[in-house]
């Protein structure tokens, strides 16, 4: 049997929920214990290893919990004090603003380049398409920490090839926060574009050729065919990709940390680094927990629209 192909990517029709699933008809009518037994291990794992930490995070965001309290096993409830402190901290809001801007730039670049390359892939001849795909796969496969090390080297002040290429000898790309962010964004986009490009390509390939034939018979040119056939079909795919990219980029820690540990002068500190700094490095566990809860809320608020859309299409299958 073949694996699920991208042709199944269009949202399922609304009545799909009523349609019988592919399971044996006899099996689904009877009340059976088997499906419950099958989901128990995953529920147990998620409950213990995910639910409990989430609960703890929430609980300790209302506690005064530093290293001292932890060692002495003290539980000091302080209500919303952690939240007032972190929300009243101007540095926190600066970090939030920076993280949002950084995420927006990463997502916009990733989506624009990824969609463009995805559409390009469909138009290329076979050899060229294989060459482009291969280069994308390589960028995709390089592990994150390897990629950051590699881009540190490409942008190195003394022997970096970028300086040679641009004719800017000894230019220090890591001297200012903005330019350091430039390098970080480049690393992230370099690794994120392939997934978007391949998914868009798969989406375009799933459109039946007859649609275009019909459009041509109606006298539509390539531009109109693109606007009225390709784009509407791609729209849900692009929405999901934007959604996923936003989540990934908002939370990114490894690349930002590994490039300059938030430097220079703490100018590239994003939310995950800030939480690491408050929580692990400064041992203010309660305060950092409140910050983490706020981070999740920001992400959730930003995602409500997408989430509703996704839950609707996902669960109607």
């Amino acid at each position: 049997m073949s694996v699920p192909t991208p042709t199944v990517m269009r949202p399922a029709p609304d009545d799909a929920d009523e349609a019988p699933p592919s399971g044996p008809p006899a099996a689904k009518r009877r009340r059976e214990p088997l499906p419950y037994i099958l989901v128990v291990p995953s529920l147990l794992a998620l409950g213990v290893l995910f639910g409990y930490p989430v609960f703890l995070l929430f609980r300790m965001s209302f506690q005064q919990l530093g290293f001292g309290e932890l060692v002495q096993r003290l539980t000091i409830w302080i209500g919303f004090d952690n939240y007032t402190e972190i929300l009243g901290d101007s540095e926190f809001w600066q970090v939030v603003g920076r993280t949002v801007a950084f995420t927006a730039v990463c997502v916009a670049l990733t989506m624009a380049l990824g969609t463009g390359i995805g559409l390009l892939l469909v138009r290329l001849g076979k050899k060229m398409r294989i060459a482009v795909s291969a280069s994308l796969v390589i960028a995709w496969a390089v592990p994150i920490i390897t990629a950051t090390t590699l881009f540190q080297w490409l942008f190195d002040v003394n022997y970096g090839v970028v300086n040679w290429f641009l004719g800017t000898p000894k230019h220090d790309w890591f001297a200012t926060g903005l330019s350091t962010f430039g390098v970080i964004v480049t690393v992230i986009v370099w690794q994120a574009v392939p997934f978007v490009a391949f998914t868009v390509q798969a989406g375009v390939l799933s459109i039946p050729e007859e649609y275009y034939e019909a459009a041509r018979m109606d006298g539509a040119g390539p531009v109109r065919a693109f606007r009225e056939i390709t784009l509407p079909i791609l729209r849900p795919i692009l929405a999901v990709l934007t959604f996923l990219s936003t989540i990934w980029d908002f939370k990114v820690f490894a690349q930002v940390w590994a490039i300059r540990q938030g430097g220079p002068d703490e100018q590239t500190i994003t939310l995950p680094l800030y939480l690491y700094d408050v929580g692990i490095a400064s041992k203010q566990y309660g305060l950092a927990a409140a910050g983490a809860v706020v981070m999740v809320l920001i992400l959730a608020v930003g995602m409500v629209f997408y989430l509703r859309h996704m839950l609707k299409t996902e669960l109607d299958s």
Partner: protein
Amino acid sequence: MKLVQAPRKLRRAGPNALALLVIFFFAFPAYWMLRTAFLPTLDIQSDPPVFFPTDPTFDHFVTAVERPGFWIYVRNSLFVTLSAVALSTVTALLAAVAVARFRFRGRKAYLVLILAVQLAPFEALFIPYFLVFRQFDLLDRLPALILVYFVSILPFTIWTLRGFVAAVPAELEEAAMVDGCTRWQAFRRVVLPLLGPGLVATSIFGFITAWNEYLYAFVFMRNEDNYTLPVWLATFRTAFGDDWGGAMAGSVLFTLPVLIFFLIVQRRMVGGLTAGAVKG
């Protein structure tokens, strides 16, 4: 697509030029990593840069591999990654069969839960994990990483495998059961072999995610003997100055297994990813 009627060569001139640019942007950094890894140290620090190693050397690979701890970190990374993948694949397969083959009360709620966890920021959870592991004396031990990686790749694995299970026609199972197989035999002899590609694709994805993970390994593993390869690689350069040859050789070694797996399953993985991410 046959939208434009111009001659083939001409029609492709524009796209081909763009394609070359794309190839340059995506392949060049990786090429530069390779060439630096094989270049003698003196050639690495030259102006203008040497573009092709005429006199390639394996010295940097030898330095990287002979660095104290390298093989320990390889072992740690393999142990942690493979354990997490094995745990999540088995757990996810059971769950995937349940949601793909049965309609049961609570199925929707379960799927919402899986989606929600998939979106949860593990990057915001390291403080409670830190405290829990501290309490159970797991803080500086590899099993802590196995547990975190297991649960962080589990939802995705369930979600994707579900698509693969649903793609195997239930009629096959029924036919086997009519022929006298028990349900378990029908599953093991008929369905499981057909799930092979799906299991491979999802476990490769889990493998790459865990193999790559940095934050938790960095925060929890304090003792150098418990480092994983990403942590080792990130501290490599700060510890040994500007040894770019060594750093790039280490990077190549760290990339190689992923790249090999990737090339084997790439096509299947895209299908699985899109099916899991977009389709129900």
